[in-house]
């Protein structure tokens, strides 16, 4: 079942088109930067972008910061929202469940396929960004945000951890969308529901008056991957972000499981 879902993911053109689009945005930004040689004024624009002109090895981190606020979560929400509701909309869900496959098993298979997509997306975005960045801007020793220089090994490790952290953050989005996908027969509604939650969270994170609820908002610690490039690494928000996403993943997957295993399948 898991193999079937993964094969389906890889064979679908949609998977590759959406990932190509994700990788295209940072590439477009890089080309404009390289051609015009005008970096954003320091302190404005996405993280790391003003430092990229000096050092292309920093571009994977900058690319993640570019797609993180909107593009990446939307892509993940669409794929995860489609997981169950898509089958229901196509009328294939009943036939899937007539086969001797447990509902929990099907849900796990769908989940693993969504996880694979998320990981694939962040890996391709950062991989493409690394190639584009080093080709266009050259590379050098990676500077940390704190004004020290990182060795190549440390810099690579931190970049890999940043990619994994962003991937983990996206799994929270995936869990919410997957849960909504078990509630409705419309993949669009499931994806939009997850995106609505993220937009709400984004608004509240920026609002000083909402400080009480901020530690519980799903997007609160997304940008904490920047802390990996401080020296020494500031683990505080990274640990909190990892734990918070784990809670979102556990709660919404639990809810998805509780709902889906007992649901009346009508389509």
């Amino acid at each position, binding site marked *: 079942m898991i193999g079937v879902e993964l094969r389906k993911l890889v064979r679908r053109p949609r998977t590759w088109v959406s990932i190509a689009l994700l990788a295209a945005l940072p590439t477009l930004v890089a080309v404009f930067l390289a051609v015009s040689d005008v970096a954003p004024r320091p*302190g404005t624009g996405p993280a790391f972008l003003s430092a990229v002109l000096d050092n292309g090895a920093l571009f994977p981190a900058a690319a993640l910061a570019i797609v993180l606020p909107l593009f990446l979560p939307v892509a993940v929400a669409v794929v995860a929202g489609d997981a169950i509701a898509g089958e229901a909309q196509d009328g294939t869900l009943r036939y899937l469940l007539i086969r001797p496959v447990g509902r929990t098993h099907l849900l796990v298979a769908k989940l693993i396929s969504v996880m694979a997509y998320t990981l694939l997306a962040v890996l391709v975005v950062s991989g493409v960004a690394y190639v584009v960045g080093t080709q266009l801007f050259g590379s050098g020793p990676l500077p940390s945000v704190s004004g020290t220089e990182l060795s190549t090994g440390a810099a690579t490790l931190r970049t890999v951890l940043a990619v994994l952290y962003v991937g983990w953050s996206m799994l929270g989005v995936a869990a919410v969308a997957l849960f909504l996908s078990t509630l409705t027969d419309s993949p669009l509604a499931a994806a939009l529901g997850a995106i609505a939650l993220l937009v709400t969270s984004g608004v509240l994170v920026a609002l000083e008056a909402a400080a009480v609820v901020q530690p519980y908002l799903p997007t609160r610690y997304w940008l904490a991957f920047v802390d990996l490039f401080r020296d020494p690494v500031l683990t505080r928000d990274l640990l909190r972000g990892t734990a918070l996403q784990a809670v979102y993943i556990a709660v919404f997957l639990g809810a998805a499981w509780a709902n889906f295993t007992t649901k009346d399948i009508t389509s």
Partner: protein
Amino acid sequence: MAEPTWRWGAVAAGVAALMALPALAGALPARDSGRSAEELLAKVRASGTVGWSGYGESRGTLVLPDVRELSDLGDLVGGTTRVRAWWRGPREWRVNALSLVGETDTTRDRGGGWTWHSADRRALRLVGDLDVRLPAAADLLAPTLGRRLAGTEDVTVRRLPARRVAGMSAAGLRLVPRQPALTTVHRVDLWVEPDSGLPLQVEVRVPGHGGAEGGETDEGEIALQAGLLEVDLAPPAQERTRFSPPARAQVTRVDAPDLAAAADRFAPYVLPDELAGLPRRPRSALSVGGGVGTYGDGFTAVALVPLPEDLARSIIRRVDPGGNAEQAAVSTPLVSGLIGRDGRGRAFLAAGTVPPSTLSAALAQLRVTPPARRTR
């Protein structure tokens, strides 16, 4: 329909358990050390040599107009500042003020200090000491701010119940000014680590709006607070407090990093020994400047800063766009500022933790007796 119930019940129980965790951790009781208020105060004053490292936040509720010349002051006193710090002693420390995507780091060494701005990869080298400068993130660190406020003699001090701060039991201290009419500070509450005397949390309160305004029973409102959220009470390694600019960074040597430091170094006036009834504070023997005067004792602090004409006009225009370019006033519950002119039309800024009427009296005094020029 028995089946769905247990599944949803399991999910609900899991959510409830997860949500209860922070509340449980916060309910851990704090143990009181039993030390007297005077003993703790003495320890706080001597805590500058205590080595520590940690993470803290400070939060202010004061709204200042957006004046570029005052650099980050508005953000410092009107928002939340997140800092990491490594402290080995008063001349060996590093404070990193963190923003979402960058940081501004200040390091202090025996020869002076470095300031690093990650956003534009700029490193500023400051040689020697500054007697006068604008407040920076390092001044709003709970231990630094707490020590500075505890340094004053003109207060009565008593114990407050212990509180858990940064995972430790911290002993509470309340400082109340002896002459409340002189200052906007209503009271200062400190929570300190009882063995080292390191202040872990500081709350500066101004008189509240309740019925008992300014009285003994008035708890006041917090205008400025600083606290450590994580702290390690071991001296950090030496390389943590050192800075050397990275390759391809822009390095500049500066003598006077801000408006106040520049005025202190270059302003050519002999300032009065007493301003609006407040005595001038003594300066360190090694001081090179003297162009800025600081007045008052304890929580009562006023700075008198001579301003160049173009700078004064530009600040006045920003503070009071519709005004007459002669004077402008800013007032918050804790800090107030007034730019005005002396009897010869020269611009001065008076600012401090005093009621606005004290600042008006100060400028009135300058109008009657304008400061003479310094002879070099």
